[in-house]
């Protein structure tokens, strides 16, 4: 059973990838989906074993690295954290597989797509079940690879290519952090297995090394979980198909960074400095992404920035040492964010692949089911009382308030909650409630999608509503709610509702001054806020510009001018093959000029050398 959940997705990927042409489009979809559903069932059983019966399983398959110092097994570790992650991964993955069979129908490459999705699930499961850092790294790189393949699924589109390369490269920056962290861990502990590392924690001599390890691990998490600084790949990754965004960039892959922090929690506990960095950067990410989400016009980008923002929450609460709360939010977030993404996909599908919210509107009459789904997802995201988001998000903010020295994080989080509500309602309003901006011939064909798109939405909606309540005791049973003033407990909810109401009023009542609505037509729609602020937020605080202009282009120029022209083509080639061969030709031709063709010169040379020979040998022969 435990082996099955790891290798069934791999089998599914291989069969769908290799024999996809034999299976056919429909067969590949049915086969991979059923594999994933089996995985889901198995993960429920595992959850029962690991979390409800608290029986942790360690499974060592074989020795992998066996040198004198470093012994690493290829092994699995099924504990509480893994059990919950497995539930999240397999359920989201199974639903996305089923959804994809509907969403991608008509695409000629469905077997390849399903194969990639299954391969991604395999790597993600490998990541969460590994019992050492090296095997975790396989999964870590594997999901990055699958992210590349899936964003680039429609590889004829240049934007998809660029986005895929960007995702790969930006993730690679974080991966270097993880690799370096692994080196330092090995240097410090002599082992890379979790059980060893976490049990000899108190024996560490240099606490500076702990800080170094934690910061390097955190860099890995920053890259994968799109925290501030290395977040730019996440919005661009929306170039991929919508199910990919739901699976990878909302529910699973981006949470791998958070998972790494949770898994390495015992390490982080020994480094107060790293914890503060984690908290502050997480809070800043939450706030930053929320402000950017306010003004995005692409339906999927709004949801992508909201993912970024929620990941900020998760990282922030890791920084205040409440890993189980972070895991809880991760779980809830996976359900409602997958719901939001898949609903957005349903909207896009209904509107013949239109993603711009400015060209939507009035869809409530045409696709009411999707409207309900997206509304549930948004309410859950806003932390509306008694939905999934409420149980984790409010707890995170309370816990942040509890640490008085991190008031900054708390208030950034609270304002992010307000902004989150604002852009959620903005999304709903512009897409469903406002007057329609869609062409009539598109609206004529708008309809709800087939069952394999709507059923996953329904299941995810149930998850978004109930998971928070159901899983509360299991996941965060031991976290007692902090003692804070009642007003602080109420503030996040009040702010969320305030944000939602503001958004509704702003878009519904202010007929001419639409808040944060860009000027499609300068005469009719004026922007309430200054265009400078608007464009600053719309371009995501100019992070792309700054990185491209000050880092990437400078590095490219340096690479061309210095590395290539001066060093490679200049220095090394002159000293190396080109220069030496030219010099040899020159010298040998100079020597061949000695062959003058004049007999007397030959004689002279002969005599000179005979003379030299005699002169040199004279002391030994004649003089001796």
């Amino acid at each position, binding site marked *: 059973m435990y082996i099955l959940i790891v290798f069934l997705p791999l089998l599914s990927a291989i069969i769908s990838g290799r024999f996809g042409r034999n299976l056919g489009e429909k067969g590949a979809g049915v086969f991979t989906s059923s594999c994933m559903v089996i995985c889901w069932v198995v993960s429920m059983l595992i959850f029962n074993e690991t979390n409800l019966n608290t029986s942790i399983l360690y499974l060592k398959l074989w020795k992998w690295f066996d040198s004198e110092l470093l012994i690493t097994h290829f092994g699995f570790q099924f504990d509480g954290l893994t059990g919950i992650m497995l539930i999240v991964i397999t359920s989201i993955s199974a639903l996305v597989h089923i959804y994809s069979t509907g969403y991608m129908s008509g695409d000629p490459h469905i077997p390849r797509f399903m194969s990639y999705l299954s391969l991604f699930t395999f790597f993600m499961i490998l990541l969460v079940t590994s019992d050492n850092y090296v095997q975790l790294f396989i999964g870590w790189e594997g999901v990055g690879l699958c992210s590349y393949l899936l964003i680039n699924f429609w590889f004829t589109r240049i934007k998809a290519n660029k986005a895929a390369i960007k995702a790969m490269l930006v993730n690679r920056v974080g991966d270097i952090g993880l690799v370096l962290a692994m080196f330092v861990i090995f240097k410090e502990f002599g082992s890379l297995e979790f059980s060893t590392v976490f049990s000899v924690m108190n024996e560490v001599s240099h606490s500076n090394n702990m800080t170094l390890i934690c910061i390097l691990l955190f860099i890995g998490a920053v890259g994968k979980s799109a925290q501030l600084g290395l977040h730019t790949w996440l919005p661009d990754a929306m170039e991929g198909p919508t199910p990919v965004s739901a699976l990878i960039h909302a529910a699973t892959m981006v949470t791998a960074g958070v998972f790494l922090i949770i898994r390495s929690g015992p390490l982080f506990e020994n480094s107060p400095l790293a914890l503060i960095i984690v908290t502050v950067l997480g809070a800043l990410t939450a706030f930053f992404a929320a402000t950017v989400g306010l003004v995005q016009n692409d339906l999927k980008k709004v949801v992508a920035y909201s993912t970024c923002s929620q990941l900020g929450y998760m990282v922030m609460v890791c920084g205040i040492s409440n890993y189980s709360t972070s895991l809880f939010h991760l779980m809830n977030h996976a359900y409602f964010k997958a719901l939001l993404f898949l609903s957005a996909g349903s909207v896009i599908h209904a509107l013949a692949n239109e993603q711009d919210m400015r060209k939507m509107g009035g869809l409530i009459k045409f696709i009411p089911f999707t409207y309900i789904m997206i509304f549930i997802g948004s309410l859950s995201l806003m932390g509306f009382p008694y939905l999934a988001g409420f149980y984790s998000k409010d707890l995170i903010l309370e816990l942040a308030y509890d640490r008085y020295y991190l008031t900054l994080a708390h208030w950034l989080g609270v304002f992010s909650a307000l902004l989150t509500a604002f852009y959620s309602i903005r999304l709903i309003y512009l897409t469903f409630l406002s007057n329609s901006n869609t062409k009539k011939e598109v609206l004529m064909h708008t309809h709800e999608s087939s069952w394999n798109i709507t059923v996953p939405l329904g299941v995810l909606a149930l998850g978004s509503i109930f998971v928070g309540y159901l899983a509360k005791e299991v996941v965060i049973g031991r976290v007692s709610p902090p003692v804070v003033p009642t007003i602080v407990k109420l503030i996040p909810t009040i702010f969320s509702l305030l944000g939602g109401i503001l958004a509704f009023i702003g878009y519904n009542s202010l007929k001419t001054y639409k808040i944060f609505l860009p000027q499609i037509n300068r005469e009719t729609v004026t922007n309430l806020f200054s265009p400078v602020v608007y464009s600053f937020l719309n371009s995501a605080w100019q992070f792309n510009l700054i990185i491209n202009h000050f880092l990437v282009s400078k590095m490219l120029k340096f690479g061309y001018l210095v590395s290539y022209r001066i060093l490679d083509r200049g220095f090394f080639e002159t000293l190396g093959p080109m220069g030496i061969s030219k010099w040899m030709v020159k010298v040998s031709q100079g020597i*061949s000029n000695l062959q*003058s*063709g*004049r*007999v007397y010169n030959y004689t002279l040379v002969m*005599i000179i050398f005979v003379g030299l020979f005699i002169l040199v040998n004279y002391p030994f022969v004649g003089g001796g």
Partner: protein
Amino acid sequence: MYNEYFIISIILFILAVLGIILNRSNVIIMLMSIELMLLAMSFLFLINSEALDNLIGEVFTIMVLTVAAGEIAIGLAILVAYYRIKGTIAIKSLNLLRGWSIMGHLGKD
């Protein structure tokens, strides 16, 4: 006692060498210089034979004279053959087999 003879023969040899090296015009002079060289060597052999009271030097001298005669005969035969083809026996015209620079030729021509 025999120093003068030694010096004379060595001077003769050096003169012959200089005759080859410095001579820029005529192949016949070169052949004559070679003959002079051989004669100087023969002279040296004879002096040594006398000085060391040894017959081998004289035997060698006979053989060197024979070789010199054969050599000059072949040399003059080459000269005649050469003159038939070129119509001149100037040494300046002998330098057709020289080394030359590929780069220099590519660059200049």
